[in-house]
């Protein structure tokens, strides 16, 4: 258990979470006046689209020095342990979003909601493509949503869930489904990709 935890670089994770919380408090409700390529009228992109990528990057970094082969052949079943880190970060993201949004009245809930969706994508990418694809997969979704996900008058396309307002049911549904799929994949025996083979 101790080895398992140490291999996941707890100090780096703590630093990343601290940086995320600081950014969330200072910038989480901000909207950058970035022009959308499809809708010149939608002249702002919420920073909450990009902020949660920091936690996904930390999650990917934490997998880098893990000996996956040893863990896959361990006597004790580790499927529950594999959920600890994603669920821990999930709790941090949701609780911090709720607290900061309640305290400031801003749109920080979007960051929490987006992390849910991003985590699902990252876990699926981890399963199918390996740990190095986690951040890149999330980046593709966020990167396409920012400049290409706005329809006319700033209304987001249905697939561009990171741009939806905090109360959007479709976005919440998409994020929930992605997370459920990602967690379900994490509970399975590691794939060869995950083992780096």
């Amino acid at each position, binding site marked *: 258990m101790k080895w398992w935890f140490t291999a996941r670089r707890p100090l780096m994770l703590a630093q990343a979470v601290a940086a995320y919380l600081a950014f969330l408090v200072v910038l989480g409700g901000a909207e*950058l*006046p*970035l*022009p959308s*390529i*499809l809708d*010149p009228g939608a*002249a702002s992109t919420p920073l909450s689209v*990009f902020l949660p*990528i*920091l936690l996904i*990057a*930390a999650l*990917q*970094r934490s997998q*880098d020095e893990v000996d996956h082969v040893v863990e896959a052949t361990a006597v004790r079943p580790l499927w529950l342990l594999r959920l600890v880190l994603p669920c821990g970060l999930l709790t941090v993201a949701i609780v911090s979003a709720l607290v900061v949004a309640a305290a400031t009245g801003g749109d920080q809930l979007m960051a929490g909601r987006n992390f849910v969706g991003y985590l699902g994508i990252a876990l699926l990418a981890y399963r199918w493509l390996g740990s*190095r694809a*986690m*951040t*890149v997969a999330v*980046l593709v979704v966020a*990167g396409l949503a*920012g*400049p*290409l996900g706005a329809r006319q008058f700033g209304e987001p396309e249905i697939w561009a869930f990171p741009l939806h307002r905090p109360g959007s049911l479709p976005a919440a549904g998409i994020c929930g489904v992605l997370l459920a799929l990602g967690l379900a994949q994490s509970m399975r025996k590691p794939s060869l990709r995950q083992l780096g083979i």
Partner: protein
Amino acid sequence: MNHTLTKSVAAYLTLPLVALALFTFGSASGGDSAIGATRIVQATAAIAAMTAPVLAGIGAWEASRIRRSNLDSLGVARTQLEVVRRSLAPTIFAGWFVTLVIQLARARAFPSSLPLLLEFLLPYLIVVSATLAGFALGQRLHGAFAIPVAVVGTWLLTVYPIAIEPLWIRHLTGYTTSCCSVETVLSWRAVTGAAMVALGIAVAGALLASTREALRVFAAAVGLGLVLAAASYLVSDLGSEATQARPTTDLECVQEEASGVELCLWPEHKQLRGMIDQASDEIRTSLARRQLAPPAKLTEGFTSSEAWIFGTYRDATSSEIDTALVVGLLPELPPCIELGEYPAGVVTGVMALVVADYAGKPEAFALMASEDDVIEAERVLELSEAKQTIWFESNIAAIATCDTNPVMARDLS
């Protein structure tokens, strides 16, 4: 080389990058898309906004692969710069290929001036600078962090400046969205500034990627700072647009020998010459009945204050040309209107309607006039000819200043 190519992620991303850049280009706005310069500028903007961030991310990815290989701890025969070159060559060639495809497919016109030629070459420089900057970042940060920072950072640095002040900052990125209408050309200052910044980043990126010596890192930072300062100085005179007035020597002028009337048009509008000739003749005839004579020279670009200046566009209809010509007859508003009160403001709309009527084109402003102006214009046109002349001459004088009260129709009736 084959090994490098098949292992490079850029090789697999080339076609998606072409599609993304074409898509971005297709939705680009700003400028008259019928003009070759606009299409060249839009091609550059599409590369800067959508391709460069991805290439920066690929650069960071390649650097993270070399980090993982622990190459530094091995006895490497090649120099660090050679390792960087071999690692990034497929990415840079992929970026150049995307640029070439976009330019061949969409830019169409070949650059016709030196600034445009530089704008044409600028995306190739942006490709190199973004890739090298991403690589340098990837050498110093773990790939998990370097790739998102490279992609999001490059994108923000490219497109965010158009949303902030001072307005000239936007001209340093190559993401130009405001060029060109027919009466403007791309400013050499804007394109040179963007090229200097891209070159500075490319050189600094190459220095940072090929060494970890503190002195060279310091030199890269100082050099980039100096280039940024010089480029900023170069573009700081520009406003929000990367354009300057087009030289009036480009105008194509034809003079009627009998009447001395001259018509000057931009070459892009030569097909409108017949329509404009006919409409201006009708207006001159109609105004002559009121003993009014517009200047003999009718021109699109500003050549002198004595000319009848108007503006139109390639697909203008005859009624749009009528409106443009009547607008050209209206008195110019004085610069002081931005400073405070402008009493003659109440008659500018009425003057437009009256002039349109005198010009025999009463429908020129029919759709855009306010109801009050229409009523006042009707009152003016019902006055006797002598009183109309007083109204016209008094208000032409009033409109030209900010301290003269206008004459209303009721004052004369």
